């Protein structure tokens, strides 16, 4: 596969050799070697947490060279980047996932922020800034005055400004991390055309994306990462969706997941026409036209990539974020006012959020206070908390869920992640629930606690609760759920039962590849 192509020189200009990066001893990258050739687009794909972004942060100097093992070679020279500035000086420009632009500055100011050209006496040479901005805007195909304030531009145009800003450093290598995440389909199309043009101009690109359709369209080579390791790299001619997905998913042990025999009962939760408006872009919908049902004794898996709107969907039906007009949520046929968690909880819904530190527990409170937080009225008579009862309830849960803690008075932040998660679960189990929503319930939890959480889920559906589960860990989701709904681009892309489910089908729907490819 090394024979010369029409482009002639296929020598790598950039090489990563045996890179290993650990966070607190946990490897995020294991012995990864990768190269980039002049004038190519090299796509990196993998599940969430596979190590793509970590790898690119090493390349861009965000992780200084003493924090990882392995070597970075650029044009035949070993590089030791100590800061993003070092990487920029060497010609590597990173365009970040979240736009790091200032909305109230002009295009030109954004492009040259921090390195505005200066003349005598240290004053900014605006004439030079504007003219150079104009040239860069032409290069990224943006027909706007450099004096336009950024806020007036569309997401796609802002993305182009970000790229122009990167090009202003006169790099030879561009790194794009999910550049289309905030763009609509047509905007993403235009961005990809532009990337192909830049490639024609001789820039080499690393391109990270979750969307396989984009990767298929523009990549010269595709590398799949999984669990911090490189699984495969294939040339354009060898690329196949089936193979990429297979490599992304891999095969894992099945014994972790306990089986169960529960026949789903009648519908307990019905969501109709749910939509969620975008929080900052007016008129844009994060989610629209979502309708789904959940039965008693059923675990419904909500799949999709990070950013597909899974958490927003459950938060909207729980009343934690504002749902759009026309949204209807029913519990056992009775409508639930979807504008406050208080109402949803009263109707029998519970939500375990994905980030327990941010909005799962209260760090200033102890275990018992965290457990009883959603059930204060159940342990109080006329507003007065029965503290003996509170303690008894908490002790009962500590035993039942085997929460490893010195006692109910121990601070919740003294617990391990798994035990914190079990405490949060106890908070909801204390209530008479009909529907429990679990958003990434096993994230940051040790294996033992994971298995325990799976058993607990089975026990709960056995008691005819309905569960909605969100997980980025495919094997977990596939093993635990009876039915699946896959979200992508703000809509339901696919819906199927356990019998019809496969990792491939799920990935296919989540990455939105046409089924005929």
């Amino acid at each position: 596969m090394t024979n010369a192509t029409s482009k002639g020189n296929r020598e790598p200009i950039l090489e990563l050799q045996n890179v290993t990066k650990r966070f607190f001893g946990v490897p995020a990258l294991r012995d990864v070697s990768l190269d980039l050739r002049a004038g190519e687009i090299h796509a990196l794909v993998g599940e969430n947490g596979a190590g793509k972004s970590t790898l690119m942060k090493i390349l861009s100097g965000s992780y200084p060279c003493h924090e990882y093992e392995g070597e970075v070679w650029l044009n035949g020279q070993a590089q030791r980047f100590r800061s993003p500035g070092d990487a920029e000086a060497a010609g590597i420009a990173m365009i970040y996932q979240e736009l790091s632009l200032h909305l109230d500055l002009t295009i030109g100011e954004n492009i040259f922020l921090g390195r505005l050209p200066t003349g005598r006496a240290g004053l900014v040479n605006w004439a030079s800034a504007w003219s150079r901005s104009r040239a860069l805007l032409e290069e990224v195909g943006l027909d706007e005055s450099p004096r336009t304030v950024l806020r007036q531009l569309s997401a796609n145009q802002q993305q182009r400004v970000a790229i122009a800003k990167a090009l202003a450093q006169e790099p030879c290598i561009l790194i794009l991390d999910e550049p289309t995440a905030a763009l609509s389909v047509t905007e993403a199309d235009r961005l990809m055309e532009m990337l192909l043009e830049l490639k024609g101009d001789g820039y080499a690109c690393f391109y990270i994306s979750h969307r396989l359709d984009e990767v298929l369209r523009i990549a010269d080579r595709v590398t799949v990462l999984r669990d911090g390791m490189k699984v495969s790299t294939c040339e354009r001619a060898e690329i196949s969706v089936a193979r990429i997905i297979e490599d992304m998913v891999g095969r894992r042990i099945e014994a972790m997941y306990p089986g169960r025999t529960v026949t789903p009962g009648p519908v307990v939760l019905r969501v109709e026409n749910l939509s969620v408006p975008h929080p900052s872009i007016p008129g844009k919908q994060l989610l629209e036209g979502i309708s789904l049902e959940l039965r008693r004794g059923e675990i419904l898996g909500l799949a999709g990539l990070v950013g597909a709107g899974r958490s927003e969907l459950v938060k909207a039906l729980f009343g934690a974020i504002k749902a759009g007009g026309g949204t209807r949520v029913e519990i056992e046929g009775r409508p639930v006012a979807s504008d406050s968690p208080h109402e949803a909880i009263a109707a029998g819904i519970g939500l375990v959020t994905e980030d327990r530190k941010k909005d799962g527990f209260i760090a200033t409170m102890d275990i018992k206070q965290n457990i009883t937080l959603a059930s204060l009225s159940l342990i109080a008579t006329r507003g007065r908390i029965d503290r003996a009862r509170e303690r008894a309830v908490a002790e009962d849960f500590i035993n039942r869920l085997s929460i490893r803690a010195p006692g109910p008075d121990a601070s919740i932040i003294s617990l391990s992640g798994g035990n914190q998660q079990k405490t949060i679960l106890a908070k909801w189990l204390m209530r008479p629930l009909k529907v429990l929503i679990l958003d990434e319930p096993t994230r940051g939890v040790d294996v033992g606690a994971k298995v325990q959480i799976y058993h607990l889920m089975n026990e709960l559906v056995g008691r005819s609760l309905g569960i909605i589960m969100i997980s980025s860990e495919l094997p977990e989701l596939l093993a635990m759920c009876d039915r699946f709904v896959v979200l992508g681009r703000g809509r339901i892309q696919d819906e199927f039962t356990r019998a019809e489910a496969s990792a491939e089908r799920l990935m296919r729907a989540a990455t939105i590849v046409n089924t005929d490819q």
Partner: protein
Amino acid sequence: MSGTGKSKPISPFRPSVKRIFLAREMGVTIPLLFLVLLIGLRNPAFFSLDNLINVLRSTSFTFIVGIGMTMLLVSAGLDLSIGSVFALGGCAAGYALTRGFPIPLAIVFGLLVGFMVGFVNGGIVVWVKIPTFITTLGMLYMARGLVLVTTGGVPIYPLPAGFRALGQEGVAGLPYIIWIALALGVAADFVLRQTTYGRAVYAIGGNEETARLSGIRVSRVKLSLYMITSVLATLAGTLQSARLGSAQPNMGQGFELEVIAAVIIGGTSLFGGAGTIGGTFLGALFLTVLKNGMSMVHIRPDWQQIIIGAIIIIAAGVDQWRRRLHR
């Protein structure tokens, strides 16, 4: 009941001793005793019954408003407007009295004004979502302006003797004001520590989003806290007018800072989620003893200010140090 709950034999002694020493109020108690001793040695007149009652009476004003401020700070809120609202309450009651309102009705009128100011403060914070610091800072100016506009800047007097008695007389050897502060303190302590409402206040201060997602009606609770604080400020202002025998338009200037200082010295966390009424009582007492005592040992007022300022910083430092210790 198989005994699994008692499987870990923890020494019953250690945690309780630790609890006493780590209790947030302890931060003030020892310096307070030390201070009292120091002042008493330099000037035994400090221990005279008159002076002690005087100290307690002054403490009561700070403490009454401090009750509301404690609850607000525990919920990670703040109210900077109370100094003006204090004057507004006193003048509203005074105004009603000069218009011939019966005494109880005049007092209720003053409290009603506080109720409304609190509703506006809380409403702006909760619904318009303007930061509490800005909202109550604005109200600090507006309420003072309102006092000056309605009184024309002139003190309201004379006030009826029955009203003055409220501030100047007492029962069982102690002024009414001290009894009122005591009753409010006991009630607030009960509410904060034993009721679901109090638990909600701590939860909101600890993590507002978690509290909301656990079904606590955050907006309602926050709104009510601003109203409680304002009502307490107008009550204290009314009592002050009764004590002085006239409603002064300029009273309570800088009072908000004194109250906040007392609450923080009393161990309430600046970051929300922790604090007690008992601590605030000790904080208010400490501040009053300090001021009273410094005058009694003839420290010049300008130096008093420097010392008070330093103590506030030290108290906040102790709070942060304690947080680090717990983590």
